[in-house]
């Protein structure tokens, strides 16, 4: 069985500080994997090395059996990987539908077309609205991102990621900054995602995260402290040590 994501012996240092120390991670297809750790544990750095925003010093990252370290960021989207961002990076001046269309277009050969108009009646817009429907935002499809609430923007982020029909989805703190109601809504969304998509999530909200996770990776100072099934990790004394008093 080919792993959706395999990280082997990943190392990264900034100046003299090791931010990723021999990290190993295996994510099976369809698995729900949670990455947790205190602030500064190197979770986002690890993510960045998987997405290609950061180049590791050594080690390997494979997506569905393909080594991707040498590939630029934009090539990785074509390997079935999508991601969301911790900070909202949507196209604020455009409509929700337009945002999703851009996502759909990213992996579509049509994007190279310099002549045929891409107007509001295009089939891409219909598809976009369907994806917006799946995150409960169909009614808002023609509003601009700047006009909707923060919680709604987070859902658009997910729609953008889902629109590329990924087999590996990376969620970077999808619940950050949301109200309780919004958290419930977004968590439900995430749990509804098809079981053939492997999801790797960084999240601080333990209630939601633990309900979601099948397996958990605990990081501290760039090192893997515990790695395993959810219940085993939760009960592991090392985990509790890392999260003193949580």
């Amino acid at each position: 069985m080919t792993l959706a994501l395999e990280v082997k012996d990943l190392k990264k240092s900034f100046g003299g500080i090791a931010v990723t120390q021999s990290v190993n991670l295996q994510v099976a297809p369809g698995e729900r994997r949670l990455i947790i750790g205190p602030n500064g544990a190197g979770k986002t750095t690890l993510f960045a090395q998987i997405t290609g925003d950061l180049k590791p010093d050594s080690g390997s990252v494979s997506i569905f059996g393909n080594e991707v370290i040498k590939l630029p960021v934009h090539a990785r989207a074509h390997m079935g990987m999508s991601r969301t961002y911790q900070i909202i990076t949507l196209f604020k001046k455009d409509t929700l539908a337009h945002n999703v269309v851009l996502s759909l277009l990213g992996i579509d050969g049509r994007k190279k077309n310099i002549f045929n108009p891409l107007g509001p009646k295009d089939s891409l817009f219909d598809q976009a609205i369907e994806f917006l429907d799946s995150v409960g935002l169909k009614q808002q499809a023609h509003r601009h991102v700047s006009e909707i609430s923060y919680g709604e923007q987070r859902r658009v982020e997910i729609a953008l990621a889902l629109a590329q029909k990924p087999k590996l989805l990376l969620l970077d703190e999808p619940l950050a900054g949301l109200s309780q109601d919004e958290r419930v809504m977004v968590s439900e969304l995430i749990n509804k995602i098809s079981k053939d998509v492997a999801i790797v999530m960084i999240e601080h909200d333990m209630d939601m995260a633990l309900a979601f996770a099948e397996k958990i990776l605990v990081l501290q100072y760039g090192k893997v402290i515990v790695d395993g099934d959810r219940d085993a990790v939760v009960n592991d004394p090392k985990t509790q040590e890392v999260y003193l008093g949580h």
Partner: protein
Amino acid sequence: MMKNSIFHIVLVAILVVLPLFFGEYYVNLGSQIMVAVIFAASLNLLVGYGGLTSLGHATYLGLAAYTSAWLFQKYGMSHDYTAVIAILFTTFVGAIFGWISLRASGLSFLMLTLALSQIIWGIGYRWVALTNGDNGISGLTRPSPFGINLENSNNFYWFCLIVTVVSLFFIARIVNSPFGTSLKGTRDQEKRMSALGYNVWMIRWVTFIMASFFGAVSGLLYVYLNKYIHPSVISITSSAEGLLCVIAGGAGTLAGPILGSILIVLLKNYVSGFVERWNMLLGIIFVFIVIFMPAGMASGFKQLKNRWFGGKKP
């Protein structure tokens, strides 16, 4: 949608019959404006739609103009060939300069476009054997496509009109195409676009090439109009005027370069009759627009047009 097309057709129709009502001076002014429109529209691809501020775009106007002039003067080559070679050569240089400039981004990109433009400008002035330096190249002629004599102002005006309409048509197509949509995306959220699978560098490079292509087209019209070329056309001032046309009209809009060019060319022609300080006026307008009207004139005009002619809902 229909109403939008009617607006365009009416507009073009008016432009076509204008020479029949105005004297030669105004007809030539019209041609001048159209050269500026194509130049500004080409620059707008980079600046307005790509978010890449270039300070060296006059390079491509100048290179095409000089290539055409030089081939004609040195080899007596017919304009059929000089035009093709000029455009191909200039676009080729655009590809190279684009590659170099896009090694950097943001303000370093700007500085590179300026520096590269200065090299060409310097060559234009100093390599006298090639370019005739400060004297420029004169004694040039206009082409005679299909045997029509373009030395006649009205004929040349209509020739420019055709080239302008066709160029703007293609630029509009590019901007509204999937490629254009992705270009605007890279302008607004570069990192996100990469993550979504777009090769941002490639999109920008292709845009740069297209911009230099249309810049070359404007250069040919320029040298045909004036029948003379001088290195000052490749100066920073020249590039800046193009920028001003784009910004004043409204960057990132199709109407912007048109409105901006009309304003700047008219100002330049009338004001320089009264005031020696064109550069100062240019500077003041620049600062004024940037601070007080950053969206340019196009957004204001668009509202007017929509009221009278209907059109796309915002």
